[in-house]
Every structure is written in C-alpha cells, then in structure tokens.
C-alpha cells in the first residue's frame, strides 16, 4: 500500500541568502556499465529558493556531468521532471530543498517504469496508451470554419475542463499500485484524457472509446486506492475519471442487452 502524500509546507517566503548544505542521495544507473542501480550521495550547497530540480542540476554542473534527468520549463507545466522524492512521486521543479533540510533527501526514477538511465524512465508504453484512447474530437455535428465556433455553455464547459489540465507527467502511474501489477492497464492519466473527450459537448466519440474502457486493460483494473489523485500536481483527479467510467462501462454493458443498437450513445 502506497504511503499517503504529505503536502509540503509552503514556508521559506522570500528566499533568504543564507547558504546551507543538504545531502542528496541519487539512485544512479548506467545501463552500459552497471549491473544494477546504486546510490550516490552528494553534498549540495543550497539557498531557500532552490528547487529539488536545481539541486540535481547543481550536481550535474559541478560534480558529475553524466547525471541524467529530464527537465525543461521549471514551472510545473511541461511535465518532464517527475521523480520519486523520498519515495513519493513529485515534480522536482516545484519541490523545494528547504522542505527536506536538514535531513538527507533521496531521489529515484519514477516507480513502475523501466529505467533507461539514472532518473530517465522509458515512457513509450505511456505514450502508446495516450494514443490508443483516440484523444481528439470526433465531431458530433461537424462544422465548417465559415460556420464559426461551437457554442459551449458554462455548464457544458464545466463538464470537461478539469480533465484538460493533465500535463502527462506520469506521477499518477508511478503512484498507481495496479500499474505496478499490470503494466498494460491503461492507467489514470490516459483514462482521464479519454473522459475529457467523452464529456466535451463537441465530441460524439464516446461509443468508439467505450470498448477500451471496458476491456481487460480498462477501468476494472482500478482498485480505487485514489493515490493517483493525491499525487496529481494539477488537481485533475484521474481517480474520479476512472471511477465514473466504471459506472459508464457497467451501464453500457446492460444497455447492450436492452437496446438493439448497443450501448452508450
């Protein structure tokens, strides 16, 4: 059972200049020379404004240029820099060293993914799941550009907008016990994205997507632990999307008996 997420306190207001030293223990793995991953510890000088990502960058720039990790935007929107920080999946750019000091901090590659090198994991399986759910508008009523925009009332907008916020950081996959057990499980983020399109008033593709929802890789894998929603940095609540779709899939199953045309409309 995964540990509960502890929200880091937001202290350290207005960064102070005082420099301290924090120990960062990083799980290293070089596939060309290492039999298995091993830990290395670095002593990193830091100030209160520094993120965990900046700590890792400090190591690369000053101690060992071979340390490997993904990062880009530094502002929790590109979704690149997820890591296990003290065993919890987090975006390293919005986690702060000050919140762990004076204790040692441990950093590992995201759980439930194969490690390619150091903190870089193989995301190809996740990308295939995203592609599989038909994550695009399948128009309910096609419209030409000359006809202008679709009208979407605040009520219709509110049905799906929350599920558009996913940044594909895959923290929820690292958190999900079922992904660990069955790597084929379509998983929280992809299911949330599927739900996003199903709930969009412009879309008419729900029936097409339902097959995957109810399949062996689909929603019934979920054991409703809810850890995915806890670790989500964007409050997408993928656990909710998965469980709404369990109900939809069950409804769909029964509708197939009742209606000659089949299930979900």
């Amino acid at each position, binding site marked *: 059972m995964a540990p509960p997420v502890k929200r880091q306190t937001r202290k350290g207001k207005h*960064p102070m200049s005082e420099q301290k030293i924090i120990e960062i223990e990083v799980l290293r793995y070089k596939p060309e020379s290492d039999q298995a991953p091993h830990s290395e510890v670095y002593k990193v000088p830091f100030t209160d404004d520094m993120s965990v990502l900046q700590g890792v960058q400090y190591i690369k720039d000053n101690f060992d240029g071979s340390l490997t990790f993904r990062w880009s935007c530094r502002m929790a929107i590109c979704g690149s820099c997820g890591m296990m920080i003290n065993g919890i999946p987090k975006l390293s750019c919005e986690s702060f060293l000050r919140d762990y000091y004076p204790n040692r901090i441990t950093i590992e590659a995201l759980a439930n993914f194969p490690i390619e090198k150091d903190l870089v994991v193989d995301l190809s399986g996740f990308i295939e799941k995203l592609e599989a759910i038909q*994550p695009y508008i399948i128009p309910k009523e096609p419209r030409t550009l000359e006809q202008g925009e679709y009208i979407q009332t605040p009520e219709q907008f509110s049905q799906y907008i929350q599920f558009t916020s996913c940044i594909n950081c895959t923290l929820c996959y690292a958190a999900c016990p079922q992904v660990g057990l069955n790597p084929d499980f379509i998983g929280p983020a992809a299911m949330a994205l599927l739900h996003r399109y199903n709930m969009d008033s412009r879309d008419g593709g729900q029936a097409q997507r339902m097959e995957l929802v109810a399949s062996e890789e689909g929603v019934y894998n979920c054991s409703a632990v809810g850890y995915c929603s806890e670790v989500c940095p964007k409050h997408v609540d993928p656990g909710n999307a998965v469980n709404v779709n369990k109900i939809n899939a069950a409804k769909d199953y029964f509708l197939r008996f009742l209606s000659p045309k089949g299930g979900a409309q």
Partner: protein
Amino acid sequence: MEIYKADVVIVGGGGAGLRAAIAVAESDPSLKIALVSKVYPMRSHTVAAEGGAAGVKRPDDSFDYHFHDTVGGGDWLCEQDVVEYFVKQAPVELTQLEHWGCPWSRTADGHVNVRPFGGMKIQRTWFAADKSGFHILHTLFQTSIKYPSIKRFDEYFVVDLLEDEGRCQGVVAIEMATGEFTMIEGKSVILATGGAGRVFRESTLGGIVTGDGMALAFRHGVALRDMEFVQYHPTCMPITGLLFTEACRGEGGYLVNKDGYRYLQDYGLGPLQDKPKNKYMELGPRDRLSQAFWYEQQKGRTIEHPVMGSVVHLDLRHLGEAYLRERLPLIYEMAETFMGIDPAKEPIPVRAGVHYTMGGVRVAGNCESSLPGLFAIGECASVGIHGANRLGSNSLTELLVFGKVAGDEAVKKAQSLPPGNSATLLKQAQAAEQRVLALKTKTGGTERVATIRKEMVKSMEDGCGIFRVAETMQANCDKLAELRERFKNINLDDKTSVWNTDWLSAIELDYQLDVAQAMAHSAINRTESRGAHQRLDGPDGAYKVRDDVNFLKHSDAFYVPGSAPRITYGDVKITKSPPEVRVYGAAGEKADQERKASHV
C-alpha cells in the same frame, strides 16, 4: 546508420511543428511526414505560454486595427504584406483550433471570450485561462495522433541538415535513448525549433530553448535576420525568470514602484487609468514597460531585495481571490508555490527578464528560406510580423498561421521534386556523425560545458540588455569569441552512448554560441534605437533615437566559419503604414485620431 525516407521532415514538435504536420497530413495523406523532436511534443516550450493568441473577434475590431497595432508595435520593422496576411488568417486558425477541442475560455452565452493585451487597440486575445499555450499544444498534439501519416521521432536530437543539388534534403539526428544516428531524408524540411532565449541568464524560458534550428540554418549559409531584437518581458519572477503573464495586466493588475506609485504614467503611457484601457499604462507594449523598469531602477525607485535584486510590484490584490482563481489560476499557484505569496493579499515582486527572440531564420512570406526546400516557422523564424518588438499574443497565433502556410508549401515542394541521391546524402550524414561523435569521445580537454555556458549567459546579459552601449556590446563580442575558442577545449564527463545529456548539452552550447554571436554583432552594428534595441550612446547621444534614414532596414547575420558573423542590411516591405512617431497613452490616441482624420 538508420535511414528513414520521408517526404516532409519537421524539426520541432511544438505548436508550429505540430500545426505544420497536421497541414501536410490533411493536404496530402499519401506524403510521409517525419516529426522530429528532442522532447516529447507536449514538453515543447509552447506549453509555457500563458496569456493567449491574438485574432480579430469583436464587431468593433478590424483587420486594419490589428495590422496597425502590430506594425506600430514592431516600430515599423515588420514586413507589412506578411502582417496583412497574418491578421486575416488569425481568426480562421483560432476557430480551427476551437473545432479541434481547444478549451478557450468562454463568455456567459457560450462564445469564445477575448481579453485585452499590451499594445492592442481592441480586446482580441483568445485565451484558455492563463494556460493558453499549454492548451494549444496539447490540443495540437492530441489532434496530430489522428493522422497515421505523421511518424514521430520523439527524443531525437537533430545535429545537421543535409544539402545536395542546391536544396535541403533531410536531417541527421541522434536517437537520445541509444546514442545511435539516423538519417531522415525529405524533399522539404521545416524548422520549428523555437527561440534562443537561454543564451541569457535570467529568462522565462525552458532549458530546451537553445536556438538549435537557428544555428543549423545559419551554418548552411542562411541569414539570421533581426537578431539584435530580444524581448525583455516586464513581469518575471526574480532569479528564476519565470513568467507572470501580461494577462495579469490585461485583467487589471497594476505595476507600482517602491512608493506604491504607478510609475508607467511617467513614461508616455498615461494618464493614469483606474480600469484597464487598451494601449494605456500597464497595457503598453513590452519594450516600453521593460525600459520603464530600467529607468525606475536608475532613479532608485525600485524595491531593493538582498537576494532578488531590484524589483517592482505587480499588484493584483484589488481583483480579488475568486476572479484571480478563475482568470489566472496558474499565476496564483506559481506565486504561492515558488514565492510563498498569496497574490490576493500581497503584491508580487517582479523584474524584467528575457522572453522572446524577435529575429530568426530569414524566410519569405511562404516560410521558405534562401536554401530551397528549407522552411522555418514560429520563434526560430523571422517571417517578418514582429519587427523590432513583438506584441504579446501575436506569437501563439503565428505558430498556427505560418505552421499551416509552411505545411501547405512543403506539400507542393514534396509533390513536385524527385527523390534525392541517397548515396550522396548518406556520405554527408556520416561525416556529420563523425564530427559530432568526436566531440563526445575526445579526451584531454579542460573546459566544462556548465562553465562556458555560465560565462556566456552573463556576458549576454551585460552586453545585450534592455539598454545598450558600444563598450559593453564590444566586451560581449570579445567574450563570445573567447568562449568559441575555449569550446574547442571542452571535455565531457560522460563518454557513453545511452541518454548522454552531457554530450547533447555540449552540442546545444555550440548552437548557442553561434546564435549569441549573431545577436551580439547585429546589436553593435545597429547604431540607432528601435523597439527592443535601445542604445544610450553615440556622438551627442545620436544612437538614442530611431534613424529611419539609415536603419529602416532588417539586419542579416551570415555565418563565417571561425570568425564573427558578417552583418548586412535588407529592405523592409512597407505597404500601407509609413513610419510614424511611436506613441502610446493619450498621445497615441491623439495620433490615431489624426491619422483617421487625414484619411477622410
């Protein structure tokens, strides 16, 4: 070496690259598209754009207004025929994106809403809360999955272009996960690699924004145009440079100095307005606002912080928590998470930081460069719509409008040309492979990537700042030449093949040094002040003002191996807006009225 034969190769999977890929796929599904990106497409820096995308929407707006705002905002260094096309296509493309599912923010009656933005006469910025770039990028990425002819090369790093028979015919790339090389042939190659702002220290930009496409084209003899024009965004987070969107001001935020005074009224942007008024005060253009910040600093009216340096305050308190959470949710979270500030209760300390490269690979209105078959779009390109200063929310629209143009043009080319000579191309690709591998395997060097990069970004900040003088610009040119030499003596810690980011950073640094030199030399050669290029020197301060006699010209920087770039000048296309005095606030409104009267 792996070989893949495509018809169209697109380098970069951000907004522009994805839009181009979709255009090709829709226009001719039989063409094979290779979409090559050093990150998964949804990591591209389009993701970080916040405020929105400009396109005429309201009945009281017009293409003509958008045109004049853009050309005036660019201090008359825009290609006006290209701007005319751009403003007309803008609403078409933004509507297209709506059809693809982009969650644009709406009005109560369900229509797409628009917000005010700096330098724009009428509200015309389409927005998706304050995550417009994120939503545009994800919408395009997800839509692109629909098209089987788009083959993605995710996490492939392009190291060279292939050129034969006088045209561009493909690229050479490293598969990052293995370190293996792949040659990707194509009859059209579209560069969509984004800007180069990471050559500066304090910037809003992600680590990937290293000018790769600019350097690739530059080394193949294509001009980098108008590189001296680098946009400083007036409201960035101190130290990190993270962006607080212009929409903060569009929604009614104030900028105040240490006395709580809305200082913009002292810089030709007044008089003071209570509510946001287009082209007044906080809704002035970015270059003017960043310059005003600099003046406040000189006058000692900024707030001095021991760590953050000189800052002013972005005050959003009067907008209230509920409104801020609805319109600016990302900004709210960033202030809380990164600064420990509740923006509904406290003002946010901000300063100006590097944000955008107005210049880039010189292309014509059809997005093709001087090397046939090589196209460029988005921030890496200079198609001519931004001139000397880009208006906020024009660049997201640019990705769409010119992504579509380049896609369509690339199709025409790919349909009309025979396949290239694969044997010749392979020889070139192998030569590139050897050259790039040598950087990794060589031993005995003493320089670190991080050291040279650190010195470069500091030098660029000093030499190509908001205000410039010959002395520091020359020092910057000299420093960059020194770093170019020292780069030869680089040594990597990592000599392995799999995921060698030490090696990739070194290749990026090599690109950055070329682009930085183009910027530095274009800057020192322009002896006038225009848009984002402001000088404080010259005989009797002669360079402090715009000089249309000598410098109503684009600069073109050309690569000279082993030396500083050669700078030449080219004409600016004027169609219907001859240069005027560039004024905002009440003076701007008066000038507008006079122009209108003279047309009657």
